[in-house]
């Protein structure tokens, strides 16, 4: 079971990392969320995979699930919520102010000083952007 569980977490993490490396804020947000799933599950699992144990104190029961990781994950989830909300709003504001939702700063803010980008792709990007607008 552990192997299967580990593999699942690995897959989620991998997808998360890949999306985090995408240059668009939205993909990054998705990646971040996936990564946090993986992390939370991992953190939860370090109390070991305890199937059908009592989480609540009940007379007569002696075998309980390790509560500490659960508490930690709870805190982590809530903090994660705060962070996600923050990032989403930030992405929103960026998209509105900067005019695009690229996460890779310089290469895409249209400051005249940046001569690094070939002419063509700028126009191309403009086109894709206008498409986004129309859609």
């Amino acid at each position, binding site marked *: 079971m552990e192997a299967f569980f580990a593999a699942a977490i690995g897959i989620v993490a991998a997808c998360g990392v890949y999306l985090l490396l995408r240059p668009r804020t939205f993909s990054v947000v998705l990646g971040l969320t996936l990564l946090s799933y993986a992390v939370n599950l991992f953190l939860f699992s*370090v109390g070991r995979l305890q199937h059908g144990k009592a*989480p609540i104190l009940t007379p007569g029961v002696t075998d309980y699930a390790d509560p500490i990781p659960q508490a930690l994950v709870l*805190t982590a989830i809530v903090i994660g919520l705060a962070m996600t909300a923050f990032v989403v*709003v930030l992405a929103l504001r960026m998209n509105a102010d900067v005019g695009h939702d690229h996460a890779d700063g310089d290469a895409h803010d249209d400051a005249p000083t940046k001569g690094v980008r070939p002419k063509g792709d700028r126009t191309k990007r403009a086109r894709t952007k206008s498409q986004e607008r129309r859609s």
Partner: protein
Amino acid sequence: MSVLLVPLLPLLLGWIPLVLGRRGHVTTAWSAGLVAAASFAILLGVHAPAVFAGEVAFAWVRWAPSLGLDLAFRMDGLAFLFCLLVLGIGLLVILYAYFYLGDTKYHARFYAFLLVFMGAMLGVVTSEHMIGLVVFWEITSVSSFLLVGFNNDTEAARRGARRALGVTGLGGLCLLGGVIVIGHLVDSFELSVWIAQRSVIVANAWYPAGLVLILLGAFTKSAQMPFHFWLPGAMSAPTPASAYLHSATMVKAGVFLLVRLSPALGDTSLWFFIVVPVGLVTMMVAAYIAMFQHDIKGLLAYSTISHLGLITALFGISEPLAIVAGLLHIINHATFKASLFMAAGIVDHEVHTRDLRELGGLRRLMPVTTVLASIAAAAMAGVPLLNGFLSKEMAFQETLGLSRLGEMQWVAPFVVTLGGIFSVAYSLRFAWEAFFAEPKVQREHPPHDPPRWMQAPVFVLVGLCVVVGVMPAVAVGGLLEVVATSVLGDRMPEYHLAIYHGVNTALFMSIMAFAVGGLIFSWRRRVLDWQGGGILEPTAANAYHNFFGRVIRIGRVVTHQLHDHSLSRYSAVLFSLLLVVGSSPFWPHEARDALVLRTTTALQAAPVAFCSLLAFGAIATLVFHRRRIWALLFMGVSGLASALLFADYSAPDLALTQISVEFGTTVLILLALYYLPWKTPREPRAPARTMHAVIAVLCGTGIAALTYGVLTRPLESISDFYVATSKTHGGGTNIVNVILVDYRGTDTLGEITVLAIAALSITGMLSGFRARRPTVDSAGRAWSPDTHPHLLAVMARPLLSLVLLVAVFVLLRGHNLPGGGFIAALMTAVALILQFLANGYGFARARLRFDFVKVVAIGLALALFTGLGSLLFGQPFLTSNYGYFPIPLVGDVELATAMLFDLGVYLTVVGVIMIMAIRLGRIGGVEDAEPEPELVPAPAEPGEAG
């Protein structure tokens, strides 16, 4: 202790001229003069007798002894000599500067810098503690930077100043290094200890390193090749500064260091073979270059370099007599070179040019200056009956028969003679072309001798040249004796100062010098033409310049390449680093077996299903990430799957929280997506997809391996404690909740703080922010105008009260059964948001009139005060207490202080979520909304129509 006063007086009173700045030039000059004079008086009055009695005075300033940082001063012969030079010439320079600067605006600043420099220089020469010496050494560099850059409106001055600082600063760094090295060899930074422990130092394997570093310091300061180039550049300083720093004092700091340390580090073959060649080469080459300088200050600068080279060579030889010769030459050079600089300054001041090609014929116009300058120049050339002659003779004599050179003994005298020849040539050229040659340009305002007092300093110095030259024994004999003794101690040689030592090689060498030098001078036209401009531009300067050009260029390239602010690149770096470093413990073979299989449990149906769902959701998100709505849905699937896993692995609280958070997050992102592009287009610049894929896969593998490695370990944790005490001492059966509000309540307090800050920042980010609300969806279908379905509106209102009731229940039971403040809060928030969705912003807002920021604050305060409350009972923060209270209809309800805390959590979370929801919900506002339509009357909302 009066030793302190000598350096510290000028250093600490340097600000006086600045304060008096407004009172006019006379005042500032006098103030500076008086400060210097006071220090001088102490030197002569208090120390001269002691020093001539052969005593050495010490003084300590405890700075940071435990760190090895101290200021210690010693006043012995050598220190005394240099103090004499620094203060004596310093006074003359102040007098001279008063006339030279005339009515310049920044005179106060000049004197202030000058005093600071003076003090620092005195500190260098009187230092006993070597770190202290370094401190003063660097201060001289900085003050010279300020003095050279004094006329900072010209680029030449600025560059000159920067170079002077750069080169001498580098030297200072090396010196510091060297001092630390040697200091560690004998475990002390005190000069006396170093001298006493000479054998230990010289024997140590690190002696060469230390020596080289210290020598680098000395060479840079004394402008030895190849570090000489900063000195000509520094000629853009006001002439008084040049006369002071660049002839008499600062540049002497290097040779001072050599002679000061020669008893401790000197007289080894390493010392000899580094110092002597550098000195000789510098002497000869600099003298050669000097011949071709047209700027008289430039000529004098190279001449200075050359003479310093000679002194360096003599100290490198470190035969007792050589050292005596070097010391004598330091005195002589200071006198004649300072006076020459002043003369040059006078010429510049009166004629307004320093170019030998334009000067000439000043003999008639400025007779007095002419005489003085010529005598000084003669001394520089080493004409008999002048002080230059004596030391030059001794120097020549000492270069003979250097046993260390073996077969090559002839080289030293040969080189020195060459140097002598050149110096004769440039001295002649200086005097002749400036004063005696026919004037090349006719001036309508013929220049004239400056006021008497401006010449006075020159007169004094030239007088010294003559006096020393004519009656050396009387004039400097005693002083030299004391100084030499302080350096050589018992190695003090037999010598007598005389004008004529009879016919010897040295005399022959000087005659050679005069003959050939004169010859070269008479052929100067041809020599100049033949030489052209080649060597005049010192190559070292270019090297230095190019070096920094390159540094800056590299810096630009590297920085631009690295800092491209591309998040994906930055995170790629981070992940790669994680992989490399994180895996490093497993590189050694024996570590691999840490991952061997241990206890594992069999596959169970439900978890397997959930895990698969989880993985499927993630992969689907990845696949569909360009179609954002879909991606979002699949992500939700993953979230749901993890909630199911939590539930299945006996964590109901987690499951509940995960689901509600999942709901919140999804709604949030949906709201955001409403204003974001709906599709992620392919990038025009293809990003490194494969590389990213590799990194991602490796990271996934890493996490998986880590998980597997941990899960297959037997765990003995601290959890039993909680099972044992949760009910008995925590007053709750829901262990997780008890942990959250009691054992680890501080975490929860922090967690809600994070939520609160997030809410605050979000309001900040969104304040005054309006995004255009799209009118059609991705498929181009128009949004339904019917924003608030009537049915929903009707349903929602009664629902609210019901949900609130449940929420309270969940909150109360949270301590014993799954639930608690957070989950209750989420339920409440959902119910409230529903009101907004159902009835429109205006309607809801009009009924929920309180400011949720305050709700948040109150919640935080409640939680905090619950924690602080226990302080009143003399218990630590967040110590919980509980009891049972009968409540009608409900029966006995257990109330723990922890529940108050949980209530705080509840309020905070409700407030935070409402803030976010309301803020986000209102971004779109309405197309025709005014900038700040807060708390708009209900009709503004289209929803009210429905």
